[in-house]
């Protein structure tokens, strides 16, 4: 299996030898940021195209077909359109917060994105409290959404923002609980280590029942975190026109749009990392030949494949279910997911203490 850490080390050595230490660090930071941004944007484009095609096939349609072969250039032309659009100044809006909000949302999702381990050694941020950092960085995005609704001087946006505040802060809780369950199982918070441990069996199999429950809770909470149907109340278009981003035009709207798609990718990526083994290939104890063959598939393909599968499941849910009502959303979280998550955490702890895991 290819180990990207050797390539990274080689680049590191080259930079250190070619320039002074301080400059090398600056150049490395810039390089990493550029790589993360390029990956972020290319995945965003992939996700938007995928959403359109998947949605179309669920609805007995074809989706984009005109621009480019199979509509491949559709997303690029959309981005172009969005860039050349005028950014409208809203009367009575809080100008600074209004312009800051989309950046906060995108920033939060880029920081979280850079924590994803795409393959062994191919990860921008990796340190001993990685999971903790991911949770902190992703909850940062709520601030942007709240500010967007608050500052755009529109009552619909305001309701949307309040809804999303209530919803996202609530679901953060059960998302945290289900991740914690897996942290108990793995015994570490470092992302690279968590993945490394799963080369000998994915956690969803090793943690059996509590891990599966945690996985399901995580998917529900993750869906709610990304504001997608059936939890798309903050932007419920038949109630609030476009919710918190009603007043945004051009790239302001574009940022929210991209961040929403990338948040879905990130949620799926984290699920892959902690439940489905990240870049680790499928490992079945006892079948050595099979395991060996699986290792020939590069880790990045495993990671992206698993992530896109979960993304596809999330899209399937989105294009099937109607929207919940705000009281139902909160009842689901506080009366069902949180208690179940807490009990599940306890079960997992008992399992780990008693050694009932694989």
């Amino acid at each position, binding site marked *: 299996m290819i180990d990207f850490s050797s390539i990274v080390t080689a680049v590191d050595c080259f930079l250190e030898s070619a320039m002074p230490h301080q400059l090398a660090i600056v150049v490395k930071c810039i390089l990493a940021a550029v790589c993360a941004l390029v990956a972020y944007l290319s995945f965003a484009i992939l996700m938007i195209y995928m959403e359109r095609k998947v949605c179309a096939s*669920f*609805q*007995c*349609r074809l989706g984009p077909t005109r621009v480019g072969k199979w509509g491949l250039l559709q997303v690029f032309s959309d981005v172009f359109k969005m860039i050349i659009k005028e950014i409208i100044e809203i009367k009575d809006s809080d100008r600074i917060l209004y312009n800051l909000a989309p950046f906060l949302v995108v920033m939060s999702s880029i920081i979280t994105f850079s924590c994803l381990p795409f393959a062994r050694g191919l990860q921008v941020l990796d340190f001993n409290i990685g999971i903790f950092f991911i949770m902190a960085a992703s909850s940062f995005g709520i601030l942007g959404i709240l500010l967007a609704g608050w500052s755009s001087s529109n*009552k*619909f946006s305001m*309701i949307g923002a309040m*809804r999303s505040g209530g919803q996202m802060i609530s679901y953060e809780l059960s998302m945290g609980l289900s991740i914690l369950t897996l942290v108990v199982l793995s015994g570490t918070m470092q992302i690279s280590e968590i993945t490394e441990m799963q080369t000998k069996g994915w956690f969803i199999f090793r943690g059996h029942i509590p891990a599966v429950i945690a996985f399901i809770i995580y998917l529900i909470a993750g869906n709610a975190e990304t504001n997608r*149907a*059936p939890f*798309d*109340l903050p932007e*419920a*278009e*038949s*109630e*609030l*026109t476009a919710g918190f981003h009603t007043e945004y035009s051009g790239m302001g709207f574009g940022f929210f749009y991209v961040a929403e798609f990338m948040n879905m990718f990130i949620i799926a990526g984290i699920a892959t990392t902690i439940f489905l083994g990240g870049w680790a290939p499928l490992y079945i104890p006892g079948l050595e030949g099979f395991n060996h063959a699986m290792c020939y598939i590069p880790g990045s393909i495993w990671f992206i494949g698993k992530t896109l599968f979960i993304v596809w499941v999330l899209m399937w849910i989105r*294009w*099937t*279910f*109607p*929207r*919940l*009502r*705000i*009281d*139902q959303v909160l009842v689901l979280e506080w009366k069902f997911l949180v208690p179940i998550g807490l009990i599940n955490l306890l079960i997992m702890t008992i399992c780990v203490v008693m050694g009932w895991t694989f």
Partner: protein
Amino acid sequence: MTEMEVKFIELDEFRNAMQRERERGMDFLREIVGMDWGEEGLGAIYILENSNTRENTEIGVRTTEREKPQIPTVSDIWQVAELYEREVFDFFGIEFTGHHDLRRLFLRNDWVGHPLRKDYDASETLNPVRLESEPAEEFQREYDIQDDKEMAKIVEKLKILHYDQFIINIGPQHPATHGVLHFHLALEGEEVRKVDIRCGYIHRGIEKMCESRTYPQILPFCDRLDYLSAHQNRHAVCMCIEKALGLELTDRTQYIRTIMDELQRIDSHLLMYSCMAMDMGAITGFIYGFREREKILDIMEEVTGGRLIQNYYVIGGVQADITANFARKVKEYCNDQKMRIKEYYDLFVNNVIFRNRSIGVGVLTREDAISFGATGGTGRASGWACDVRKRYPYAMYDKVEFKEILHTDGDCYARLLVRLEEILESIHIIEQLIDNIPEGEYKVKTKPIIKLPEGRFSASVEGTRGEFGVFIESHGDKSPYRLKFRPTGLPLIAAAHKIMKRCKIADLITIGASLDYVIPDIDR
């Protein structure tokens, strides 16, 4: 029910007489027709029905006073009268004493004059095209009932909405109002405290225009009322005129009209299902419904040339004969639809989220449904057997076998189920007729200039969202003296007003979708 016998009552006796009628069991106020009889004064005709025995009475009242005409209100006896009386006030300037919220319903607050009066001055200097927004009325007006002739000053008693509440406007441009309707809401958190529904954004004065058109020229307006039951609307008008003239239609015409009516009904119910799915956020459900609706529109297009506005029925028959492929295509479609309807249940109707959001939401009781005159699917979901096809069979409806779908829950879920089950009943009706369309003329000859005999005529059909009625008062001319359409949507709006109180914003959208109103029909 063609020729009407109106019983006129003295103004002093009127309120007592109406109360006696209500106690006698006349619980369904079908419509209030405002009238201007010129010399004989202004007044109104109240068409009442007993919802159990189907007994009808028409009661008239008039006042010779033109400056300040006053009639006692009946809005406390029949709830729907609240909006009907506002309409009469708007068009005729008749003040209903005792009415607690007498504002104009359709026209702007600053409109000069009352347009359906015969002495109305339509000059543009009085009512120019105004470019500024309508000043919003903030107060409810109450007209007290007083013993002496002098009317009490307008009492500005209650603010319609208190501005210390969080007020939002849903509409006139909003994705969920299905047209230009305006909900003025006072919210407390997510909860709706008070709803004020404002209509009139698409008011075109069709009833006024009809008074200056000949009878065949009236027909195209009907398609533009409730555009999703274009055929039924024309059916009512044609039927009323044909009965007044004593025209006998051929069997072929009746068969074609019945089939087209039912196709239109399926078309509209599919749209209702689709839009409900869309409003609840299930966009895939929406596309599924439109997939089948497209096939009906194709059939319609082949026969009538139009997809939405069809101009098909004419006095004495239909515009053109059905095409050779018609029967085959309709049968193909019916077989397909029967299978597809299962998909709607699997995808959307039986979905747990949808059930949780619609069961027990926006409950309209049977008593309220009758009092509001909420006919059609809405009334039948509340357990009121109000189908005109059963009450007063017309065309082929007494010769075909079909069930009247009744549910008793009266909530949003029941209202959707009624529509979906009616689709199957309509298919059942079509299947009984489609193979037996008799040969013959599709249209009988009429005189080149149609003049109705003197009198009052009415006819009503089951439109797709309720009873659609036509009332014509003819003075023997080639155009009607007064023509009134019974809107199917206005009673629904009146009922919405009541059941939307204290619900969540999301429920408001669900209730709106389940009532299935069409705005051009409300505003006319």
